């Protein structure tokens, strides 16, 4: 069985429609639920999975500094993809799960992937306590009630040549992106439910090629779900999450299409209050390109948000941060210089 | 008359058409007589010999042996005739390679139910084959083989001996000795001899002589 073809099927629909947009995410919703304005995510209920939506992910990126003074980046992601808007027990479950884990050092980028069927217990997200897991990778809550389940997490993952075990403690509140969690992705109105927890302080250890290194740093968590996040002509996106040294955060993305693209951003104050920016307010442009694993990818960016007086450039800790997974993309830690220095993560898909 | 051929003709089909070998040949041979047939090669002397011995049938003419016509006999009767009445001594020896000398000597006589141990013993002595009885034909020299052939031909005391160049493969001395032996034994048994030879010297040792040329006697 050609697993690659199967994976493509995974993100395709059962009906023989052609794949549309990056990874087929531009296809029609076809029976799945669609995000509606005005229905803000409620917690802790919405920390869990939403089987009636087609695609969902729990996404963590961490900018780390080791005891050796070097910069590291870690990524932990669990994707859920549904073949049908329902949950059934056992192998018949149309819910499919995929996990990506990565560790970036200055010299090398490690990544690994896991696939699992829903309904049999190999992967899934449960609440009370919150636990997102696939195989032996897990993201579990360490929080004691009545604190929000995501306010303290333990993350573990391991792949070939790397592993990490991190403890995350939130130093700020959950942030609903877009309009109270309704995040618009294109001029045609495609949208998703999207919230983040960008205020994690991280302690823990990573192991690279057998060497253990104690690390500390910051981490950013996203949870997003929708059924048709892209429009038909959108080929991919560039996504930025910045931790500014001053304490504020910035989330921004540009969806690339046949025209000029669609940008959106949210400025997050140090106290956690979000200021969503209108589409087009964020300006991004690539500064330098590199050939990474056979793909031509912009590795240095100029990001500006004039409304907030932000003009920064990003430089990657490691250019080679290409995820060698079935659906491939670039994801890696960056250093930010300019008006608002800091660290962050950049994700680029569709190259 | 032992053997009487009258106006015998014989032809053979060849690649180039029909070859007329004998054209109306007649001869007569009495008991105890010896007759030499001479002629060039291809003149038909061997054919005449074969017809006389019942080895083949003529196209036309009569062949009588002791008054009986053998030209019209069927295969079985011809075979019977040859068994009892004819002894063959041909140039090629034609001994039976799978039988030893003793068995070869007795072969034709026993075929015709005319085996006489005493007579065969005497033949063996006279032909000087006493020490060779257990040998096989391939182990004998040319002269020895021919002597065995003569012995075989005479062992059944046939009335008619047909010889076709019997000394052709032997050197002169051996050939003469063999011929002497044959003539002496024939005198003892009273058999008639019809011999084909191209040697006038040998032909002169027989009683009569006839010459064949282009299928006709002269």
């Amino acid at each position, binding site marked *: *069985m*050609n*697993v690659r*073809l*199967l994976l493509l*099927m*995974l993100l*395709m629909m*059962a*009906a*023989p429609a052609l794949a549309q947009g990056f990874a087929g995410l531009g296809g029609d919703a076809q029976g799945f639920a669609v995000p509606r304005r005005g229905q803000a995510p409620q917690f802790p209920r919405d920390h869990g999975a939403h089987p009636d939506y087609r695609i969902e992910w729990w996404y963590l990126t961490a900018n780390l500094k080791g005891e050796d003074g070097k910069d590291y980046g870690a990524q932990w992601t669990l994707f859920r993809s549904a073949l*049908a808007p329902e949950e059934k027990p*056992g*192998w*018949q479950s*149309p819910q*499919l799960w995929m996990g990506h884990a990565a560790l970036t050092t200055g010299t090398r980028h490690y990544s*690994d992937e896991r*696939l*699992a*069927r829903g309904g*049999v*217990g*190999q992967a899934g997200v449960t609440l009370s306590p919150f636990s997102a*897991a696939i*195989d*032996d990778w897990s993201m579990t809550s360490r929080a004691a009630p009545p604190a929000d389940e995501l306010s303290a997490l333990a993350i573990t993952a*391991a792949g*070939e040549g790397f*592993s990490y075990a991190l403890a995350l403690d939130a130093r700020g509140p959950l942030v609903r992106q877009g309009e109270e969690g309704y995040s618009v992705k294109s001029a045609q109105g495609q949208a998703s439910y999207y919230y983040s927890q960008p205020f994690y302080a991280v302690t823990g250890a990573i192991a690279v090629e057998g060497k253990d290194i104690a690390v500390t740093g910051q981490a950013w968590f996203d949870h997003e779900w929708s059924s048709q996040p892209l429009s038909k002509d959108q080929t991919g996106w560039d996504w930025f999450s910045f931790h500014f040294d001053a304490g504020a955060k910035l989330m921004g993305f540009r969806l690339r299409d046949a025209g000029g693209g669609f940008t959106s951003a949210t400025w997050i104050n140090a106290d956690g209050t979000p200021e969503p920016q209108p589409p087009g307010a964020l300006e991004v442009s690539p500064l330098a390109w590199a050939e990474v694993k056979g793909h031509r990818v912009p590795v240095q960016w100029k990001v500006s948000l004039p409304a907030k007086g932000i003009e920064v450039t990003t430089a990657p800790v490691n250019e080679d941060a290409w995820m060698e997974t079935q659906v491939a993309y670039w994801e890696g830690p960056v250093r930010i210089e300019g008006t608002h220095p800091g660290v962050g993560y950049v994700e680029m898909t569709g190259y | 008359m032992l053997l009487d051929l009258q106006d015998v003709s014989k032809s*053979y089909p060849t690649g180039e058409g029909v070859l007329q070998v004998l054209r109306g040949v007649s001869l007569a041979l009495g008991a105890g007589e010896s007759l030499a047939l001479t002629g060039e090669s291809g003149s038909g002397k*061997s054919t005449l010999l*074969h017809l006389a*011995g019942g*080895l*083949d*049938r003529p196209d036309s003419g009569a062949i009588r042996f002791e008054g009986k016509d053998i030209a019209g006999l069927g*295969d*079985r009767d011809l*075979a*019977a*005739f*040859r*068994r*009892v009445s*004819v002894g*063959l001594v041909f140039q*090629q020896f*034609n001994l*039976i*390679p*799978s*039988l030893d000398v003793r*068995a070869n000597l007795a*072969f*034709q006589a*026993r*075929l015709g139910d005319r085996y006489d141990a005493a007579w065969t013993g005497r033949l063996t002595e006279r032909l000087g084959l006493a020490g060779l009885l257990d040998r096989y034909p*391939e182990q004998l020299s040319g002269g020895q083989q021919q002597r065995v052939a003569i012995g075989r031909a005479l062992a059944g005391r046939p009335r008619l001996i047909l010889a*076709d160049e019997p000394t052709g493969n032997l050197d002169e001395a051996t050939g003469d000795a063999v011929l002497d032996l044959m003539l002496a034994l024939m005198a003892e048994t009273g058999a008639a001899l019809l011999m084909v030879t191209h040697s006038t010297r040998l032909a002169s040792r027989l009683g009569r002589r006839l010459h064949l040329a282009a299928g006709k006697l002269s």
Partner: protein
Amino acid sequence: MLTQGFVVLLSHWRRHKLQFAMLLLGLALATALWSAVQAINGEARASYARAAAVVGQDRLEQLARPDGTRFPQSGYIALRKAGWLVSPVIEGEKRFGAERLRILGVDPLTLPSEAAQVNVGAADIGLQRFITPPGVFIVSAETAERLKGVETPPLRISDALPPGMVLTDIGIAQGLLDAPGQVSRLLVAAKQPGHARPLAEVTPDLVRRAPPEESDLSRLTGSFHLNLTAFGFLAFAVGLFIVHSAIGLAFEQRRPAIRTLRAVGLPLGVLIMLMVVELLVLSTAAGLIGVALGYGVASLLLPDVAASLRGLYGAEVPGTLSVRPSVWGLGLAIAVAGTLASAASRLWRIASMPLLAPARPRAWSLASERALRLQAAGGLLLLAMAGLTVFLGSGLVAGFASLGAMLLGAALLLPIMLSALLKLGERLSTRVVAQWFWADTRQQLPGLSLALMALLLALAANAGVGTMVQSFRQTFVGWLDQRLPSELYVTTRSLDESRKVHDWLSSRSDAVLPIWNADLRLFGQPVQVFGVADHATYRDHWTMLEAVPDVWDRIARGEGVLANEQLARRQKLKLGDAIPLQAGVSLPLAGVFSDYGNPRGQVMMGVDGLVRLFPDASRLRYAVRIAPDKAPQLAAELRKAFGLPQGNVVDQETVKAFSLRVFERTFAVTAALNVLTLGVAGLAIFASLLTLSGMRLSQLAPAWAMGLTLRRLALLEVLRGAALAVFTMLAAAPVGLGLAWMLLAVINVEAFGWRLPMHLFPFDWLRLLLLAVASAALAALLPALWLTRRSPADLVKVFANER
């Protein structure tokens, strides 16, 4: 000059067209039979390999229970949570209509990349359709054909699957196999992350197995294919005999031509090269014809072979032949190589022959006594080796090797034995013609000895194999009567139906005996375990090969088990040995029963014990005891009451007939090959006689001249053929007996594990003798007839001057 020489060489064949035809035909037939066998074997082996390679099972390590039973998929989940990269597989058999299919259920998401080699055209399936009932069946084209009209999930064709196998989603498969949440084994991805918890900590009841070097199927059917290969070799050997004798004769007849060529100035090296080229051309042509013929023969035989394999082993082999260039190329190569090897000694002799050696056309027919004795010594040596191997060696290969040595040794001894017999005949006969007949036959012997050796082999093989098959059939039929004492046999379709049928039948029959069984792995091989009820049927009918005194009581009480002969023999079991049925559960061996026709091991135990130890044993079949005249009525009522198909309620006669049919089909292939081999041998004799007939004239002419009719001489020729056949048959008889004994006592035991008593069938042997005599006489008839048509002119030519 080259072309001139070549033309001279080839002109020989133009004059002796029949000799040429015989040479070509003999080699072609031998190549055909050999290639056919190779093709059949190759087809089967490719199919087994495909079966083994499905989902990479021949390349990947596996985790499974030691006894091979299924385990819950929670073990799979636990392993994944412990960091193991494993993928679940469930496997089992299920009937769809009249077809029994092997179902393989996999999880496409976790399947390791090594297993992903099977390209099943997933693009047009859609994952959702694959995993949602009814699911999708991926099958080969042949299986799809067999399933026409049968109700199955939608089918998709892939030629990567062997016949009779279905690939589907694990969830679908679990449902079909009535094994919810169960897994047969886990495939272990080649590259593991390395940080996983140890196996013993997570799933202590599973063991890790290396990928099997040889699949179960390969091992089971190995003996069957070895059988076929042996026949192929036999046929080829017989064919090579023909080639050897034909080349020898041609060589002798061409001596004058060769002498002339060399005298005229053709260099020896060039001459040899021309002859080699001639042989290459001939053998290539014959090889090509043979290969094409072989394809035809294989296509004809393959359906029977496939049926035998399915019936005997449950092995699935396609019924149509695919063209395999390697097999056919090898056939051609062997034909050419064999011919060159046969001719090697002759070519050597030409090379060492002095330029003006006198032509000795009869030299070849007069063999030296010394050569004969040397050959006989070789034969005795081979026989001795055969004997040694039988007593000292073990295993199938040793068995076949000693068989081959015995056959070859006997063949080598034949000429000297025949010579002795003929000498005796000569000495005993008083009449001159009789004496000459024996002496002349003896002289002909060298020219015929190769053909007669071939005939000996074919006759011995026919006699031996025939005896074995007949013994087998006789024993088998008697054993069937014992083993199938019940009047009706019922197969239900579900557990629920099974219970209902049981209740319904209990009140209407004398007894309802369960035929329940489970699969387990015992001593590393797949074994079936059957449960038997405590009933007089077994006590009365079953005979045991060995048993403890109260064996049936012990079985009923659950204090012992029975094993079939093949299992007991293979594992060298003695009464009282412990048989490990499950982890921690073993019972002593109470008896051994014969189980002909079954290559697998089988264990019998009390049915209560079976159900206890193997709760998911198949409980669908029953044997019913009732008065025989009431059986048809009961069967009809049963079918009507439950709507059971015809094939699910069968009577004793039908089952017996079916078993016998499988038996017959198995040996149909053997019978066909037997006949073909005999045919090749007959052809060999014909060829030899025909080629000798040219020389016969000069040997017969003197006798004719001295007063034997041609008809009588011709009759003697025919008689000679018959006499030689009789003698050869006399020589073949002990060889055939020896062969039969070896087959029954050694080969069959090694191959299948059961031993059959040898019965003798004198009428069959008589029939074979008559057949041999008839074919030899027939082979001699044509040359003899030609002899009678000779004109005196031809005969007297022998006496002419030419030498």
